[in-house]
């Protein structure tokens, strides 16, 4: 075996540090959240990859608590927005208000909204009207807020973690596709396992409240994001991710029959970006220095499910986006160079 080069040593160090930071944050969050390891991993993957997360699950599964725990575990500005139907864009972006001047009189002063933070919890995002939901678009994609003539650059790391409830759809507003596409992951939060219930009860009904200490910081998260972007991606893996995304688009060469029959809208190039970025995080967490097709497959559901719009026939037949992703994964083979 050839001696390890300095470059290689650097990469190994960075990768080890990455895993260590991830494990630290995960350990802190797991002090509050019992089980749901895959959900925690996915949320941290999105945070470290620089993407936004949507958590979907029935009430009472700890979605809000998970985001709050991440906000506490990482020493960054955390804000929470409880979306309601009467909320206006100015309520979350900020607006100019009249304030009393010290010497008498009034003046207009800009009061920034809760969107200006590092980690934003958009709780029950689908309860706000599309007008208010759209206020998130610019912040999520361009990391800035434009209010009137004022443009506020949001400080990095910036991450929006939203929650929504798949039931109780009355009085809610489904997120538009443009909004959904901006989320890197859509994570489905399921019920905890039976043996986890006891721990949940003990932690939440006891006298002592669990306190989370900050174990990481914003700059550290940004450094980890740089490490993620350094991971090389082989062409065959890149092509595989592209074929997966193209496979979700009806009428394409890689689309299976299920897609052609039941999908109205497939994933965008943003989906391919998400696959690669999330795959890089997966590779680092697995102790590798390059992305494998297994990494892409591992994140395919979380990255693609909210970018697939099932048509009317598919809805009538009970075809879910996850079933579509499964069909695409079965159809698309690893390209060979």
């Amino acid at each position, binding site marked *: 075996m*050839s001696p390890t080069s300095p470059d290689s040593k650097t*990469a190994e160090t960075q990768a080890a540090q990455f895993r260590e930071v991830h494990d630290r944050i995960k350990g802190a969050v797991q002090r509050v959240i019992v089980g749901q390891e895959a959900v925690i991993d996915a949320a941290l993957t999105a945070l470290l990859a620089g993407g936004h997360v949507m958590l979907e699950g029935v009430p009472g599964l700890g979605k809000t608590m998970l985001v709050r725990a991440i906000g506490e575990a990482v020493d960054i500005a955390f804000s929470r927005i409880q979306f309601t139907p009467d909320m206006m864009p100015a309520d979350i972006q900020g607006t100019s208000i009249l304030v009393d001047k010290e010497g008498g009189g009034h003046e207009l002063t800009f009061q920034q909204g809760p969107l200006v933070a590092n980690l934003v919890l958009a709780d029950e995002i689908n309860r706000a009207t599309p007008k208010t939901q759209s206020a998130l678009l610019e912040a999520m994609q361009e990391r800035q807020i434009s209010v009137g003539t004022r443009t506020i650059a949001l400080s990095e790391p910036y991450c929006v973690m939203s929650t929504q409830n798949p039931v109780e759809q009355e009085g809610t507003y489904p997120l538009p596709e443009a909004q959904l596409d901006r989320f890197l992951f859509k994570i489905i939060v399921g019920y905890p396992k039976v043996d986890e219930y006891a721990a949940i009860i003990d932690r939440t009904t006891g006298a002592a409240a669990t306190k989370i200490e900050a174990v990481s910081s914003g700059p550290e998260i940004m450094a980890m994001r740089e490490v993620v972007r350094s991971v090389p991606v082989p062409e065959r893996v890149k092509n595989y991710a592209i074929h997966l995304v193209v496979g979700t688009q009806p009428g394409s060469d890689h689309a299976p029959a299920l897609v052609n029959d039941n999908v109205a809208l497939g994933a965008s190039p943003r989906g391919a970006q998400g696959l690669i970025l999330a795959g890089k995080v997966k590779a680092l967490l697995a102790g*590798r220095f390059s992305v494998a097709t297994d990494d892409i497959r591992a994140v395919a559901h979380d990255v693609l499910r909210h970018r697939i719009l099932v048509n009317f026939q598919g809805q009538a037949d009970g075809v879910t986006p996850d079933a579509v992703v499964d069909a695409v994964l079965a159809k698309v083979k690893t390209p060979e160079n």
Partner: protein
Amino acid sequence: MTDSDRRDLGARLEAIARRAGATLDRDRTLDATRRAVETAAPLLLVVPVFAFLAALAIRAGNSGLRLPPWPLLLVLTPAPALVFVLLRRFEARRDRVGEGEALGAVDAKCELEDRLANAREFIARDARGPFVEAALADAEGHLDRADWVPVGGGAAELALRARDFGALGAAVLLLAIVPFVGGAGATLADDAGRGVVAPPPGTVARAEPNARAENPPRRNDEAARVQPETRRPNAPNEASEAQARRDDQPLSDRMKESRGETGQGRSADASSSSGASEARGVPTDQAQSSRNAKKPNAKKKEKKDRGRKETEAAPRKKPEEESGATAGRGAASGSNKSPAASTWSSKDQVVSDDEEDLEDDEEVDDEFDDNDARGGMQPQLRDRKPPVNRDLGIGFGNGKNPDANGRGGPSEQKKSRGVASLVLGVSIPDHVKGRPSPGKTKITQERVEPREDRVGSIDAAARARRASSSGPLSRPALDANLRTLLRDYFDARRKEDARSENIESDQP
């Protein structure tokens, strides 16, 4: 990692890829062959089925077909399956496993998660960077394990199902019965000296009279049987003998129908008048000769039997006679005249006067005989008038029928009957019921430029006293007191006006 280290790593990866690729190629070929064998079983039936169908066709009288010898059939039976398997095998060998795929298989086998495949690509691309170097070093650490790991799970066992064995058994069975299904003549003709297959009994019985009479080789007899109809009139003896043989043998319905359809049946039985005209004269002669041979001995008895048979078969035959198809079948007894033939159709037929007389005499006798047999109590079915012959195929010789008017008779215009002939000549307009309104209303909108409509305004201030007489005015008839009242009113007004004018003129 230095360049030489990269080259060494690349060489080792290539060696691993080559070894794994060879194994995968072999497995893939074997797997393709196995799958082809598993799916090729139904192809074993192709040749036997075709041979069986050909034998059926030969038995049904299609003498243009010949079966190959039975051993050749036996050899040809597995040929389609073999060709299919070889093609699949060739396709599998043509798609070689690439290096990337081979290393991917090694990665999967060793659970290396694309480490080797990625390293090969980084070396091929000459990619640089800390993480690339780390990836190469990581892959190098797993080479020892990848060197000896067996790649490929080997070809799966050949799994033949009951369906495959069934196909094989069916193929053998079909091959075994092919010689006995009508094609035996051909098969035996080829294998006469070899004695491969025993001939079916029917074929032997049919061939015996010829063999006794003329003792020709059997092949010649078969050849004579398959001669085209244009050659038949040259051998009237053979034709009459063949006719007699057919009369003796009970024929199946299928054979009877095919006799009317094929060229052989038409020449022997002289059926359709739309067919070739040269065949018409021959059956008459045949029938006449055979009938003349029989009549002097048992004419009366035969008539009775025939009459009884016809009476029994009358309800069954009636629909057939009414259809045009009976023109040919009715002449199977030797006459071209249909029982339902009208005057024009009799003109069309080429029948000698003697034959017509004979037919008429027979029918008259039959009627009396039938009346006796039924005691005169039942209605005579044959008393009915023959239906109008609507045989559209019957022409008027080679020329046009002068009576053709396209309405029910032999028509030059109408070529079909059935539903099309039942359609009324007067069209009935369709009505859509249940529509209260007259239908859609077409609204046409036109763009019209607005026109200015000038109306002269009347300025009240510019109005002056009338300059001239207003002409005669109608005076409504008023009562005397009202007339007096009006006069007083206007007199008073005038006085006031005059007074006011005087006052204004007096003022400076």
